[in-house]
């Protein structure tokens, strides 16, 4: 079944098809064309291609096409033999830690590591000296030279397997080491080994052709593809196909092994070929342009974010409308998957195709983000603090220049002055010894320090709005407090507005003036932060608040949770998205989606006792 699927993919089809042809030539070539390949025709020496001799004849008038086909058997046999030697030696060396015990095993492993550093061809030449010139010597040389790479692979694979419980059980049960290897370890690493051996066989085939080409491999009167190429090269002026013909055969055979290996790898899930995701171009619903609300630093209407997916477009944000006044702090809360982080990224203009952003209007810090060229001007007026400070700084650059870059690029300040400002901003976000710290790399900073430096980066310009996407989630509790206090202080000093995205209800109530509650890509309630715990009307908001334990929570009882699962963004129900989890929902709720009226989107808002 799986094999059939692999065959249907272009790589698998091409690989298996080529491999079948090559193997057929190897099996029947000498039988079918052996006579023709050996027939000397003195009247037709070194002839060019003709209807009778497709790629001409050699210096004894023998048909080269037939010789190429006949050479398939020897070429393939030698390659397979050498691969088998590599594989066998590789398994033995790779299993050394398991067979010989820890100390000897480590010695073997480090020897393998030293050998792997040398290129294969150099090892081949070394062993070719030892084993002597000729087909037998070359097989041994190529085989032994390939062993270190296999040993490294086996070692890695076996190390992963031998950690597993059933190996430990077998050991404790007193099963002998060799038996453990043969019965328990090898079957579990066989798949990747076979895949790699198949691909390696392709490489070995080419190496072998190279050796014969150099005159170190197959010797006359035997011939493989490399030998044919060597014979052909001398006459390349008069008769180029004599050298190119066997060359093409080598490449095709090499490709056959490689592609087959790749196809197997994809089948076993070892390769890196990603699954195809269809890019769905569905008709866009037109969004009517609307003017921004005056006196605001952020104004958005009907924001929609759509992600194309294999099972249909995911409507992650489905019409979000709100605004933030100058200097105001607005919080956005909701479960993961409610679309709050995508809303933040869309507002920051950081969403890239194929994810689609649409809105009636989207005005941030006076810039219309739906218009071209507005993004660049946001560099100084919008500050963004991301969730994970550990990954949000560029590991390859020092912290100071990463901050200074903002001023250098947007305010056209010189390198030195920009760096001085960066140091000053680091000091402003309470980083001790800012001069020294500015010269350090991000990995030398702690998580809390990085988040403060990130806030400092936003302060390089003159921000009117700070968008903070879960700024404290990745930090531990004591550091969370410091970062929140720093944000509050920055707002006092600069008068910037704040849009704080968080799943943490208590953080939002502490920091913000106003709260938006999001569920399944929509704002379901909007209310003053101080009323969140007491005056919420939407059943989801109330459930969310109830799920937060406080000092009065009875710890002897299970903590409150919201029953059910968040809405599936691919199949959002027609009615209220919260209806399947809502204790108050009726048929009307399930059929008609409620609009956000007077701060709440719920048909039952009036029935909820406050």
């Amino acid at each position, binding site marked *: 079944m799986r094999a059939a699927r692999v065959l249907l993919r272009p790589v698998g089809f091409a690989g298996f098809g080529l491999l079948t042809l090559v193997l057929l030539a190897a099996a029947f070539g000498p039988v079918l064309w052996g006579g023709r390949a050996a027939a000397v025709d003195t009247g037709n020496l070194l002839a060019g291609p003709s209807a009778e001799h497709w790629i001409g004849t050699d210096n004894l008038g023998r048909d080269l096409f037939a010789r190429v086909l006949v050479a398939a058997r020897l070429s393939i046999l030698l390659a397979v033999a050498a691969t088998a030697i590599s594989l066998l030696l590789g398994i033995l060396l790779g299993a050394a830690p398991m067979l010989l015990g820890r100390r000897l095993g480590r010695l073997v492993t480090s*020897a393998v590591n*030293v*050998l792997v*550093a*040398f*290129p*294969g*061809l*150099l090892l081949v*030449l*070394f062993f*070719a*000296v*030892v084993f*002597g*010139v000729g087909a037998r010597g070359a097989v041994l040389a190529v085989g032994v030279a390939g062993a270190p790479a296999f040993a490294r692979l086996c070692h890695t694979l076996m190390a992963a397997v031998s950690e597993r419980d059933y190996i430990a059980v077998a050991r404790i049960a007193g099963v002998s080491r060799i038996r453990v290897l043969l019965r328990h370890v090898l079957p579990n690493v066989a798949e990747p080994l076979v895949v790699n051996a198949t691909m390696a066989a392709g490489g070995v085939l*080419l*190496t072998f*052709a*190279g050796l014969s*080409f*150099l*005159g*170190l491999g197959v010797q006359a009167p035997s011939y493989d593809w490399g030998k044919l*190429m060597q014979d052909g*090269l001398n006459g390349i*002026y008069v008769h*180029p196909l004599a*050298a*190119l013909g066997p*060359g093409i055969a*080598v*490449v095709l055979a*090499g490709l056959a092994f*490689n*592609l087959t290996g790749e196809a197997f790898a994809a089948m076993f899930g070892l390769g*890196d070929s990603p699954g195809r*995701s269809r*890019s769905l171009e569905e008709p866009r619903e037109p969004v009517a342009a609307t003017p921004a609300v005056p006196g605001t630093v952020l104004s958005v209407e009907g924001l929609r974010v759509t992600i194309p997916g294999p099972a249909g477009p995911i409507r992650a944000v489905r019409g979000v409308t709100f605004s933030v006044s100058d200097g105001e702090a607005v919080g956005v809360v909701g479960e993961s998957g409610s679309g709050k982080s995508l809303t933040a990224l869309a507002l*920051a203009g950081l969403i*890239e*195709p*194929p994810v689609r952003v649409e809105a009636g209007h989207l005005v941030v810090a006076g810039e219309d983000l739906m218009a071209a060229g507005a*993004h*660049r001007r*946001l*560099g100084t007026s919008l500050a*963004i603090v*991301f969730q994970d400070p550990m*990954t*949000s*700084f*560029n*590991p*390859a650059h020092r912290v100071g220049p990463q901050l200074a*870059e903002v001023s250098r*690029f*947007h305010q056209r300040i010189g390198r030195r002055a920009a760096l001085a400002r960066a140091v000053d901003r680091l000091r402003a976000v309470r980083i001790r010894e800012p001069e020294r710290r500015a010269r350090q790399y991000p*990995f030398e900073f702690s998580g809390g320090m990085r988040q403060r430096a990130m806030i400092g*980066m936003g302060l390089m310009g003159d921000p009117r709005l700070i968008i903070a996407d879960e700024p404290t989630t990745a930090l531990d509790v004591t550091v969370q407090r410091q970062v929140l206090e720093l944000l509050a202080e920055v707002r006092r000093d600069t008068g910037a507005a704040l849009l704080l995205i968080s799943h943490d209800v208590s953080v939002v109530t502490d920091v913000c003036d106003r709260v938006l509650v999001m569920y399944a890509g929509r704002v379901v309630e909007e209310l003053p932060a101080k009323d969140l715990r007491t005056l919420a009307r939407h059943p989801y908001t109330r459930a969310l608040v109830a799920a937060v334990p406080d000092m009065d929570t009875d710890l002897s009882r299970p903590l409150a949770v919201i029953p059910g699962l968040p809405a599936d963004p691919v199949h959002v129900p027609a009615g209220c998205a919260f209806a399947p989890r809502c204790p108050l929902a009726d048929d009307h709720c399930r059929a008609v989606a409620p609009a956000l009226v007077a701060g709440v989107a719920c048909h039952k808002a009036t029935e909820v006792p406050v």
Partner: protein
Amino acid sequence: MKIPTSGRWPRFALRRAARLLVSLWVLVTAAFLMIHLVPGDPVRAALGPTAPADLVLARKQELGLLEPLWRQYVTFLRHLLSGELGVSISSRLPVGETIAQRLPATAQLAVAAFLLAVAVAVPVGVAMATLTRRGRGRRVELAFTSTNVVIGAIPDFLLGVGLVYLLAVQTHLFPVAGRDGLDSYVLPVLALAIGPAAVLSRIVRVEMLAVLETDYVRTARAKRLASLRVHLVHALPNAVTATLTLGGLLLSSLVAGTVLVENVFAWPGLGSSIVSSIVAKDYPMVQGTVLVYGVGVLLVNTLVDVVLALLDPRSAIGES
């Protein structure tokens, strides 16, 4: 780049030097043992079955093969330290002299090919990553990956033969073989560089695709930097660090790959001499050449690690 004054650099240098020394010792010992691993009598094999017995004996005496193994090893090491590589059996010339004469031609070829491969692979990889990012440009992606697989499957000496046919035999643009003037470099360098360039560009693309999705590139975009700056200053260095490890492996296999290509182009380098010495069983010559190749590879690997540590300081503290 200024080196920070903390303790991790000396420790890195120490660890890396130790690894280099161990590898060197393995190489030297292997080269020494090579002649002893040859089954039968190596000198008899070299001189042929018709050579008189006393000549074989004299040569053995000359090569020091009659002494106990440990003393031969000590002498070998002592000679090596004073830069002596012995005398060729067939040409009777000092091996060191021959190598010194032929090494520059090989090194020029390898370095030029490596530089060309990198100069082609990095822009191509970056461009392909940008064009095919997030499911865009499916056709471009398919064309790129399939050409890449095919080119990667053609060994360098075959490319050499193909290039000779196309650009020398057919069009007479470049000389068929030999080392004479700048245009004689074009074909061998191309033959060596095309394969590594294909492999490297594929890796640059994959690395670049991964880096473009990272949080710190999002940060760079949040700073509203020019797209060129985001790609080249923020993304590329991180993609290159990962690419370099493989680039180093490629360079060292390039050093060895010269052997085949030199034979295609009758290039007067080490590659053609090692093959003829293997065929002629000229063991001192082979020994010396293998040593030089091996040392070259080890130096390249060390150099790559150092550059890697400078580009990405974390790799200097981590277990390497």
